[in-house]
């Protein structure tokens, strides 16, 4: 088990506003951490700091692997969907370290890698479409391909299940579970109920961070972490591992 990242006493935020305070977290090579928390609680700030997009106000973020070995899937609403770019080019942009003088190279390897990822996600036929023509689920698949281009050791995903249908959501999480054999995953979600089935541990972020050592968490625990979230479950996605408030009490009576 290799340590990929250590965060020590991190404070981070924007201009005059501190969003994260005194946050510490270690990420190891086989981790699959679900990051949950209320809106504005600092989930995105946390990963932007990890990615080096925001400088810490104080504390340390030590990335122990190469920066280019961190795969990143941003929130969809950060992407300009009318930008004139093809699916294939978006995926290829994941291996940008060769982009600088790419006009001199054939980039055969890179193209093959992009092709095989598209195939793996079942979207080869979308290759030449422009991103504006895609559905939400298709777009997330494309951005997942892009994040995987560099064969990352750490994969960071910011709300990959927004604008996608339930079917794809389940498929996506199964895919992530499979990818977790090869890489650590940090997954932001607003949907505690769904992700807890797939992740190994849960990090509650609301100004502070509490790393809960299991994927089962109760509403009381959430509250004690200063992360009062409603556990919503829905649709055809398994969510049975969640300890709901009522069940918890119910079990209590029997023992």
């Amino acid at each position, binding site marked *: 088990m290799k340590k990929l990242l250590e965060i020590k006493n991190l404070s981070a935020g924007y201009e005059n506003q501190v969003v994260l305070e005194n946050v510490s977290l270690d990420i190891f090579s086989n981790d699959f951490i679900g990051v949950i928390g209320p809106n504005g609680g600092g989930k995105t700030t946390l990963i932007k700091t990890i990615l080096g*997009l925001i400088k810490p106000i104080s504390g340390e973020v030590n990335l122990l692997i190469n920066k*280019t070995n961190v795969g990143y899937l941003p929130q969809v609403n950060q992407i300009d969907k009318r930008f*004139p770019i093809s699916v294939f080019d978006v995926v290829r942009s994941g291996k940008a370290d060769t*982009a*600088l003088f790419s006009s001199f190279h054939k980039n055969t390897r890179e193209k093959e890698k992009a092709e095989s990822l598209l195939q793996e996600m079942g979207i080869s036929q979308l290759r030449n479409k422009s991103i504006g023509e895609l559905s939400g689920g298709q777009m997330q698949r494309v951005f997942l391909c892009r994040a995987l281009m560099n064969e990352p050791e750490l994969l960071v995903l910011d709300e990959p299940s927004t604008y996608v249908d339930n079917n794809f959501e389940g498929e996506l999480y199964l895919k992530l579970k499979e990818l977790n054999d090869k890489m650590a995953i940090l997954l932001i979600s607003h949907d505690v109920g769904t992700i807890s089935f797939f992740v190994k541990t849960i990090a509650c972020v609301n100004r502070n961070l509490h790393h809960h050592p299991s994927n089962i968490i109760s509403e009381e625990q959430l509250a004690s972490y200063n992360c009062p979230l409603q556990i919503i479950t829905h649709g055809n996605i398994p969510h049975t591992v969640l300890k709901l408030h009522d069940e918890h009490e119910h079990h209590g009576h029997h023992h």
Partner: protein
Amino acid sequence: MDIIIELFSYDFFVNAFLASLLAAISCGIVGTYIVSRRIVFISGGITHASFGGIGMGYYLGINPLIGAGIFSILSGMGIQLFSSKGKVREDSSIAIWWSLGMAIGIIFVYLTPGYAPNLMSFLFGSILTVSTGEIWLMLALAIIIILFFTLFYRTILYIAFDEDFAKTSDLPVGLFNYLLMILISLTIVLNIRVVGIILILSMLTIPQATANLFTRDFGRMMFYSVGFAFLASFIGLLVSYFADIPSGATIIFTQVVIFGLVKLIKAF
């Protein structure tokens, strides 16, 4: 047809023709970047700020285009600096530089003794009076732009599409943003003589909008934009010559007509 061929025996017309071709190349390529990245308003700010340099050029008795070049590059940097470091909203920052440049220009033109005869040509363009020296400058710029966008095509594309992601991939995002800002400024300044400060924004957006009706690929959009820009410039040049109306305005009008026609045809 003979009349058109005969026109090419006049030096001023050959120059105008070359100017429209070179303007199409620089504006077509740089405009695609501007439109794709949604920095049309920044480009408008730079364009108008360059008027300050033109006024200063008149006052100091140097080539107004040199003044315009300095002002446009400074305003390009200034807009970025104001909004990133000065905590001014970006659109406000653009408006500040936009109007500051115009104000400085007006003051200097007023202070310059006598009448500034070419002033109108800077404001509204005058492709028929482009000099051979200006043609050489435009040619140099076109070559630089073609080389830059060919060599660094993917880097430019990736940064323009998703700047944050490009940063996480260790691409030199800041450097390229500044280099592209300089290229935008130079493109604007050297094409001021073709369509003028007031109208140049159209050269950077209308051919691109037409191209966008045919393709949603960054590279192809550049090629098509150059084509449409050239078509409009050349037709506009001829029409303005024969109808004896201002060239810059005619070129822009032709661009809009082409856009409208293409959109109409595509609708059927």
